[in-house]
């Protein structure tokens, strides 16, 4: 492939990391949803570009899924859920934004470090691409654990999964990518539906109105 093509792929992958950072930066619910939509769209473009590069038409399906399902349906659905369940519009963070960003940068550095020893035989393209994908995954994970709000946690998970799709498409000629993306879409659907069904307002672990911390089978820790 020409350097231009690879540069474009590179650019797209890098921009995903950027958007992940922007996701981390948000503290308003709807803005977060919009940025996630952007995240998904960038993913869709990147996947589409890969499809074009690898002459792999089936990847277009993945791109399409990313675009429609994650770029449109999920954000809209979440938007409505937020409205319906009256979830706080502000995202309460465990670690405040600044430190989170620093952590994120550290994670990106880590992912680059661990990717360094990978041999060059693949061509510069895959290595950086992988590093970016790994960073996106880690950033998504970071988002899941630093945001208390259920919706933002879901979005963290989805951005993590975007990173996976990025990696999967980056790996040339990898079979089952479509199936995998479909499987993940099912997972996410479960997640969203679950949030809706269980009326999870604020956190993953407060299902329904009353907090379930008391009923983890055991009543809190003391002597048995």
């Amino acid at each position, binding site marked *: 492939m020409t350097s231009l093509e690879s540069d474009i792929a590179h650019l797209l992958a890098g921009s995903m990391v950027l958007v992940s950072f922007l996701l981390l930066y948000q503290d308003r619910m709807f803005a977060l949803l919009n940025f996630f939509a952007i995240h998904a769209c960038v993913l869709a473009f990147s996947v589409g570009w890969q499809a074009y590069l690898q002459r792999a038409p089936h990847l277009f399906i993945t791109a399409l899924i990313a675009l429609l399902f994650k770029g449109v349906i999920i954000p809209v659905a979440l938007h409505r859920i937020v409205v319906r369940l009256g979830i706080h519009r502000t995202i309460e963070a465990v670690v405040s934004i600044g430190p989170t960003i620093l952590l994120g940068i550290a994670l990106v550095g880590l992912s680059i470090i661990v990717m360094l020893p990978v041999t060059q035989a693949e061509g510069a393209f895959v290595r950086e691409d992988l590093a970016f994908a790994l960073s996106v995954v880690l950033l998504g*994970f970071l988002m*899941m654990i630093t945001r208390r709000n259920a919706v933002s946690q879901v979005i963290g998970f989805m951005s993590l999964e975007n990173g996976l799709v990025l990696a999967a498409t980056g790996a040339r000629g990898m079979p089952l990518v479509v199936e995998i993306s479909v499987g993940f879409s099912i997972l996410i659907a479960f997640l969203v539906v679950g949030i809706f069904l269980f009326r999870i307002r604020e956190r993953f*672990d407060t299902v329904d109105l009353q907090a379930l*911390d008391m009923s983890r089978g055991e009543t809190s820790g003391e002597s048995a």
Partner: protein
Amino acid sequence: MEHLGGLIHRMPITAVCFLAGCVAISALPPFNGFVSEWLTFQGILLSPQLPQWIPRLLVPAVGATLACSAALAAACFVKAFGMTFLGRPRGAAASGAHETDRWSQCAMLLFAVLCLAAGTLPGFVMDALAPVMQMILGARLAPQSTQPLLRIAPIDPARSAYNGALVLVMILVAAAATALIVRRFASHALRRSAIWDCGFPDASPATQYTPGSFAQPIRRVFGSTVFRAREHVAMPKPGDPGTARLHVDLHDTLWEALYLPVIRFIDSVTVRVNRLQFLTIRRYLTLVFSALVLLLIIVGVWR
């Protein structure tokens, strides 16, 4: 034992066998317990010839301990037999007791007889056990059953010898002779009467010495250090008809020294670890995340 007593009247055979057992285990001649104790003492008396110094210093202490334990065993079994079989019944169960069946009696008698036999003819037992010594130590005592008049002399007759059979015979002869002489010269008049009650008639069996009170002197002498035994007596005020209470608390020193610390440790650890059961999902995710980052760092550092 607090509820037994006087069984010797209702269970004579059991009493005899139990008595034989008590005498044997208290290491008293002419029973078998004494033979083994005697042999051990002989061994201890040989030990100054040991080349090493530490055991040479240790062995006499061991001997003293053994002597002490033998004497304490005697005390213990005086209590065991005396409180169970002698005196007056302390409870309904004891006063209604009856002798066991023939088979149990046979079993007990058999072992009582064995105890006496092993005590009086120790030579044969020692020779029977010699091959085991041969196997373990690669050495054995000179055959004992060939010694004159059934005696045993493990090292050298001039040094020390024991003749269980002869001792038994002498005791029997002496006892018989005494009995005969007394029968011959003494008056045969014998009258059954009440216990000498010191001016308080028909004292109830509760006034007998109980096992606890029997053990009290030894408890005070030894137990106060070994078991940290403490006695608290709560006396009612003069004129107060309430009961006086004696409360004894004993501590199992070994248990408290060895096992309690372990238990405490495990308790504290479990209490701490147990918090992990009650985290929120986000915290669990944090666990996963930190594990992931840790491993990544390891991989990153590893070259």
